């Protein structure tokens, strides 16, 4: 094994071009488990922890550019107001030790259906910025997940940043697990209301081969709010609307039975989370 340690982003891209089989390591909270258990012996480890640019975030053209190497702990302390959905999700990741090292870039790299950043990124319509020596591209996060633990990266590409527009409406994140800390979700749900464009964003975790949006549910809710004039006058949300929304979210899932839960429980818990998240978000929306 060889340990490659670029000091700059340009150098990292060069190394990835020369050694496309190199495994990137940022916080190491996924990669090191694989190495410790000898599940995987990569020829090259590409340590991104010295690439300063990756550990930065900044506002840019109306969105937040979140470097792939920004940790959950920093999202919590520095970005709770600007990225509330992602901050709520970050708050549920692992333990303080894991949040201090784990990153959104690593969550995207691993592309686990259970990754907690995904529902929040999906609901916020985030874009993933990836780069290789041959160029830069931005991928809508919903298109980034291509299969169980698979993503849209080419072998020579690295994740550079996530671009997220700060919210114009409330955001929520819910996660079901056996403990309040240190759990892989049984199911998770992210919600964002986008009143500026009269749109609704959703993200489902741990209930399909990939994280995914509940498109029908998004369309239904956005249309109902428009038809009832609720985006403008922010009145009470009809019970039938929240129930139908919850059903449509549950319909969008295609879960499996596994050690963490049954498919049936996942579908049920998703509908409960969807309805709750909507009611919480709607109450927030009426308050402002």
């Amino acid at each position, binding site marked *: 094994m060889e340990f490659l340690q670029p000091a700059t982003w340009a150098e990292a891209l060069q190394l990835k071009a020369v050694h496309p089989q190199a495994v990137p390591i940022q916080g190491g909270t996924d990669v090191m488990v694989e190495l410790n258990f000898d599940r995987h012996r990569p020829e090259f480890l590409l340590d991104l922890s010295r690439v300063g640019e990756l550990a930065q975030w900044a506002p840019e053209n109306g969105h937040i550019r979140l470097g792939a190497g920004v940790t959950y702990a920093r999202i919590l302390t520095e970005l709770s107001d600007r990225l509330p959905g992602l901050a709520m999700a970050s708050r549920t990741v692992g*333990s*303080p*030790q894991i949040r*201090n090292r784990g990153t959104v870039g690593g969550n995207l790299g691993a592309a686990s259906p259970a990754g907690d950043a995904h529902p929040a990124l999906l609901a916020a319509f985030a874009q993933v910025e990836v780069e290789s020596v041959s160029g830069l591209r931005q991928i809508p996060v919903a298109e980034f997940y291509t299969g169980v633990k698979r993503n849209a990266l080419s072998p020579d590409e690295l994740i550079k940043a996530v671009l997220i527009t700060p919210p114009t409406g409330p955001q929520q994140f819910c996660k079901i697990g056996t403990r*309040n800390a240190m759990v892989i979700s049984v199911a998770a749900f992210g919600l964002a209301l986008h009143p500026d464009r009269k749109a609704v964003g959703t993200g489902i975790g741990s209930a399909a081969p990939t994280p995914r949006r509940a498109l029908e549910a998004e369309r239904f809710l956005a249309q109902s709010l428009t038809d009832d004039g609720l985006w403008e006058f922010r009145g009470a949300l009809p019970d039938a609307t929240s129930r139908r929304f919850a059903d449509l979210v549950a319909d969008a899932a295609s879960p499996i039975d596994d050690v963490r839960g049954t498919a049936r429980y996942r579908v049920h818990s998703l509908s409960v989370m969807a309805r709750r998240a909507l009611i919480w978000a709607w109450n927030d929306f009426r308050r402002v």
Partner: protein
Amino acid sequence: MRVTCTVNGEQHQADDVWEGESLLYVLRERMGFPGSKNACEQGECGSCTIYLDGVLACACLVAAGQAQGRGVRTVEGLGSGDELATIQQTFLEAGAVQCGFCTPGLLVAAHDLLERHAGPTDAEIREALAGNLCRCTGYEKIMEAVRLGATRRATAS
């Protein structure tokens, strides 16, 4: 590969480190700091908790090369000389140590909490120690030790 880093304020070096090795292994087996314990090697138990450049982390999840040139502080570096840190003293007094395997990690995590938070609530203590498992004490004595540590630090300052 060679790894050089500062451990508890002193420069240390290890040679012939395997590139996929963890900082925990380097600390325990190559640099002579067996305080941090190895129980799960997957970030679940917290018994390997250390500070890396002042940030609480599981040493089993840090690649050795990532620690190159960085500052590590282990449980061995909490006190000074023969004098225990406040949190070590209160763990003793409260009876928060049984088999002791979880203790080094819990001490570092509790130390970090008290550095950041002068008077943590019980909920904040539980939250801060959520990444550290103990199979002996049932946690109540550990809670007591941290509360006592917080009080003692407050009266000392």
